[in-house]
């Protein structure tokens, strides 16, 4: 602990470039150290700073060890900022006092990351000889796992679901209407429900009895089958995000001292926690009772992921029942982000909904909030387009954006954000076209489908050209749309091939190689047939090598592979060991391509248009295309995760590969629309205007925000109706839920704006804005774009990063020194490398040595 000579106030004063001057509530929150703390934090009220200083106060002035603090954030980015900020502030303390601090073992991270950390923490399981971290499946992995035909059929066979189970399931989710026999639809429905079961910690055996519906019973049995299939008790268990938390909770329940490991449990964005997380946090805080939650129920966004805003709204009651003590509530209610007009507008917006519970039993919202703007700037800062048809609205807005850029009200287009409830609506495309007509570029990799961006079309078009196009069947809907997309890709490929003869030659060579391995495969199979050899039988070099190698018409490459000295020696050796190669293996080996689809991608990048996209990024002028290409490699590598990277002729023939790749993998991505990727990168690529979903904008702020579609029709998700009778907890009433959620979502959007908030006011047949926007915009004095005076608009301040960024010696410094371009691709833009033999060798050796040392340490103590 520190001597009396230094105080927290001294450190605030010493801050560069200006001292930190917390408002009284902020200061109280920072100095609070004892018992549960309930921080209701409005938008832009400086909660991150409060968390940072509060943690610093605990460590520096109250003798709390960093590893005694559990600090959970909503995103990786928030965790990184807190960690780096803390490191930086503690560095200042060290410079003044000479006292060093090491926060490397402190728990700062997303709930998921912290769950992984605590499952291998010896403080919870002192007898554990060797910790096992389960393999983690993200949403897309989970989708592919479940929708694997063999898995899904076996799962269904284990239940008493009727014959056309997919039909029954989808019909059930649609409230008894519109069934579909599509596996995809059945799986996506079930996947969400399974995750909700896990997040609510529902035991399949128990909930089965709470319903009379035979289909729901069947779905619950599918969930049980899925859980069993993951090998949770085995050597290499796998979990999805929801089950990871369940496993962590189990670890805590088995540990008698779980409630005493952390002296302080601090949870950010508490309004978006789910049931199982609440259990985790209360378990961890049971001993010392120091649980601090920070959040804003008005910004609750994640009901569809199982979040229950009641965790936050009813936190005082929960503390009383669970911990049997009282709490301190401190509101953080001064907004430092937005100009006054903006704050007044969204406060008014929120009050237009009736939040009271029936029978005057309080509210579904924390109502005693009084959010005030720190700014006293009285100029208009919220402006709407003229009420008009969409074409006119988007043109008016695009013109305003152009004006803001021309007048340098913002430093870069990436400071103007367009927010939409969904990026799939027509208004998004209209808006984009209007901006492009003004010569402006948009960054919206998730708008529409990622597969429809220029870069994806170029890659998949050339892939189609090389491997061939899957046949078109007689279906409608998604399928027909996908087939049209395939055509678009092919047309795009034709253009590139015409433009660059080198590309045409290369693509032709690839096609020839495929032809050759296919023909070699036929030839070798005929040899086997002639000799009466089964493909599955053992390969005996002495009998088989010569007839295979001498087959008429066989390519030189295949002949070399069959007569390869090394492989024949190995074959003989394995024969002796009683573990011979199969004939099939030898044939596959001789008839496979030298490249994987990821190799092919990187080679295609030598040509136009890809080459220019790389050049743009190297010069730092446009990052959009390279970001998208990086994503393409991530998708390709996912395909390789589940299929061998080697393309054998037996895989290529009879359209097997084409079907697996295009009709299953790419088609799945197409249908999923990749909505699972929600963590937006920040800052956004320079030179482009970001188009985001409101969900993506959570926690971010922009000088200018345009609400591109103030319309969202309230609709209760079927999952809520299904789950409600299975859980014995009272929540928001089903009939109010959707309305509440829409209000909260728009509240998040409106509160992102710093200097200017623009509303698109659609008003024509079929195009309108939701309530309460409609009423608010009815006001004849509402400021409109045509009369908006940009002179009163402040210039967006260049944001100085006051938090030191962390750089790694090996993965940043050394990598950049080796090659800046390699750094750019693999570190900055997330390209996935194709060949990683040496890396894997190093990893497995390193990991095993680390485990060996840990084992020796554990053995000694």
């Amino acid at each position, binding site marked *: 602990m520190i001597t009396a000579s230094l105080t927290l106030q001294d450190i605030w004063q010493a801050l560069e470039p200006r001292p930190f001057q917390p408002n009284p509530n902020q200061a109280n929150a920072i100095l609070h150290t004892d018992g549960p703390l309930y921080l209701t934090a409005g938008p832009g009220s400086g909660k991150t700073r409060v968390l940072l200083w509060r943690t610093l106060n605990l460590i520096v002035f109250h003798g709390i060890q960093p590893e005694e603090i559990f600090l959970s954030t909503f995103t990786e980015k928030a965790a990184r900022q807190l960690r780096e900020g803390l490191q930086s502030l503690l560095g200042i303390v060290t410079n003044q006092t000479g006292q060093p601090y090491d926060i490397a073992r402190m728990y700062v991270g997303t709930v998921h990351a912290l769950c992984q950390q605590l499952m291998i923490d010896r403080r919870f399981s002192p007898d554990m000889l*060797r910790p096992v971290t389960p393999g983690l499946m993200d949403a897309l992995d989970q989708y592919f796992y479940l929708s694997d035909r063999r898995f899904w059929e076996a799962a269904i066979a284990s239940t008493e679901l009727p014959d056309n189970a997919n039909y029954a399931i989808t019909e059930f989710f649609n409230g008894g209407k519109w069934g579909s026999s599509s596996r995809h639809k059945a799986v996506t429905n079930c996947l969400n429900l399974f995750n909700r079961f896990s997040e609510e910690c529902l035991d399949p055996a128990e909930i089965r009895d709470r319903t009379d519906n035979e289909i729901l019973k069947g779905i619950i049995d599918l969930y049980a089958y899925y859980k069993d299939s993951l090998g949770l008790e085995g050597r290499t268990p796998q979990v999805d995000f929801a089950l990871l938390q369940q496993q962590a909770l189990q670890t805590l329940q088995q540990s008698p001292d779980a409630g005493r490991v952390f002296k302080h449990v601090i949870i950010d964005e508490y309004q978006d926690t789910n049931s199982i997380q609440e259990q985790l946090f209360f378990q961890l805080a049971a001993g010392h009772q120091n649980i601090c939650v920070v959040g804003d129920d008005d910004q609750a966004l994640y009901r569809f992921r199982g979040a229950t805003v009641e965790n936050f709204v009813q936190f005082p009651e929960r503390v009383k029942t669970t911990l049997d003590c009282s709490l301190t509530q401190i509101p953080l209610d001064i907004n430092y982000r937005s100009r006054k007009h903006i704050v007044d507008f969204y406060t008014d917006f929120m009050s237009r909904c009736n939040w009271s519970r029936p029978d005057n039993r309080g509210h579904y919202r924390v109502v005693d909030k009084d959010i005030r703007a720190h700014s006293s700037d009285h100029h208009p800062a919220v402006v709407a387009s003229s009420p008009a048809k969409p074409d006119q609205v988007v043109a008016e807005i695009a013109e305003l954006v152009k004006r803001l850029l021309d007048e340098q009200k913002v430093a870069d287009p990436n400071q103007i954000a367009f927010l939409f409830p969904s990026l799939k609506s027509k208004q998004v495309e209209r808006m984009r076209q209007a901006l492009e007509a003004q010569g402006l570029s948009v960054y919206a990799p998730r708008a529409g489908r990622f597969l429809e961006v220029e870069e994806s079309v170029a890659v998949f078009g050339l892939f189609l050209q090389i491997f061939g196009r899957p046949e078109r069947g007689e279906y409608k809907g998604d399928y027909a749309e996908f087939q049209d997309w395939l055509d678009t890709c092919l047309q795009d490929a034709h253009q590139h091939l015409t433009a660059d003869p080198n590309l045409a030659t290369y693509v032709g060579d690839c096609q020839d190689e495929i032809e050759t391995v296919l023909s070699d495969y036929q030839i070798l199979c005929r040899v086997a047939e002639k000799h009466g050899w089964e493909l599955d039988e053992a390969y005996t070099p002495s009998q088989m090598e010569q007839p295979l190698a001498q087959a008429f018409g066989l390519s030189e490459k295949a002949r070399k592979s069959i007569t390869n000295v090394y492989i024949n020696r190995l074959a003989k050796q394995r024969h002796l060991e009683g573990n011979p190669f199969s004939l099939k293996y030898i044939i*596959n080996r001789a008839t496979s391509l030298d490249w994987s689809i990821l190799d092919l991608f990187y080679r295609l990048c030598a040509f136009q248009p890809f080459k220019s996209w790389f050049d743009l990024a190297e010069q730092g002028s446009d990052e959009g295309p390279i970001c998208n290409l990086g994503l393409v490699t991530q998708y390709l590598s996912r395909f390789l995760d589940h299929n061998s990277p080697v393309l054998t002729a037996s895989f290529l023939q009879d359209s097997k590969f084409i079907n697996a790749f295009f009709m299953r993998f790419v088609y799945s991505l197409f249908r999923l629309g990749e909505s699972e990727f929600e963590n937006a990168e920040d800052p956004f690529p320079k030179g482009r205007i970001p188009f985001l979903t409101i969900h993506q904008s959570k926690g971010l702020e922009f000088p200018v925000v345009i609400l591109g579609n103030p319309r969202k029709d309230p609709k209760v998700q079927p999952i809520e109706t299904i789950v409600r009778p299975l859980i014995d907890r009272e929540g928001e009433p089903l009939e109010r839920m959707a309305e509440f959620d829409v209000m909260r979502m728009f509240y998040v959007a409106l509160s992102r704006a710093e200097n200017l908030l623009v509303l698109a006011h659609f008003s024509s047949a079929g195009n309108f804005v939701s309530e309460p926007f409609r009423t608010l915009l009815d006001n004849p004095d509402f400021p409109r774009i045509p009369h908006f005076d940009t002179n009163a608009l402040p210039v967006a301040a260049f944001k100085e990063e006051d938090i030191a960024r962390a750089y790694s010696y090996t993965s940043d410094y050394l990598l950049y020194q080796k090659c800046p371009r390699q750094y750019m691709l693999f570190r900055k833009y997330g390209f996935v490398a194709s060949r990683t033999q040496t890396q894997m*060798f190093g990893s497995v050796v390193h990991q095993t040595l680390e485990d060996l040392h840990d084992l020796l340490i554990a053995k000694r103590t």
Partner: protein
Amino acid sequence: MTDQELETAILEIFEQNYEILQAEGGHSLTEDTKRAALQQVLLYWRKMRDVAERVTETEVKLTLPEQQTRKGRKYSIHGVVDVVQEEERTVMYDIKTHDAEYVQSNRGDYEKQLNIYAHIWQELRGQPLDQTAIIATAHPKEVKQALHAGDEAALEAALAAWEPLVDIPFAQQQVEAVIADFSEVVDAIEDRQFSPPPLSRLEQRYKTRGREKRFATQICGNCDGRFSCSSYRAYTQANRGGDVSFNRYFRDFESTDQEAWLNANLETNLES
């Protein structure tokens, strides 16, 4: 735990780690390479047992906070050192899966890294450090030959002669130079300077494992980005003459790499 039990534990841990990495990355090692990796771990245990048994901390995370670049950006330096042994003396070891000869010939790089780590350790924990060293776990060819021949006596002798520890002395001046250089790199990254190194760098020669290699083969040859890289293109044009077709560029995997790739990945395909 008996020695026998410990070896069994190593085998198990290794196998499990391999399975996890395979599941995570979707890549595999060839039988040979996998065996060689296990061999490295087992020989480490055999040769370096006294070090291994005195390790007190693994995966030690180190941070140097509050640095500032020339352009005024704040940043911090992070590193992870493999093991620290603290008994009567405090020693920091970093494990490299290269051989000692390779480490010796690239000493400069390792000096920079361990010196920074040592500096952070002393600054952060306020404790002195008695020694820093690299443990080079790849065994020399004598050990490999003895293993191959199954000659236990020769193996004993080769193991006794093997020097996997490379001592790295501490030099404070070097720390300052590295931090200054680090700052430049941070500015360059933040300013998005991502041009590839010039052609002359690609032509530079390096000595590793007694063989001379060019940057272009050693680094670029393993980089998937080379096909779209202007410097690499210039290099291939300068070294292959203008008459070689553009496509030549794509066929430059060394045949052994290609074979290893096929062996590793095709086999797992058949098993499943």
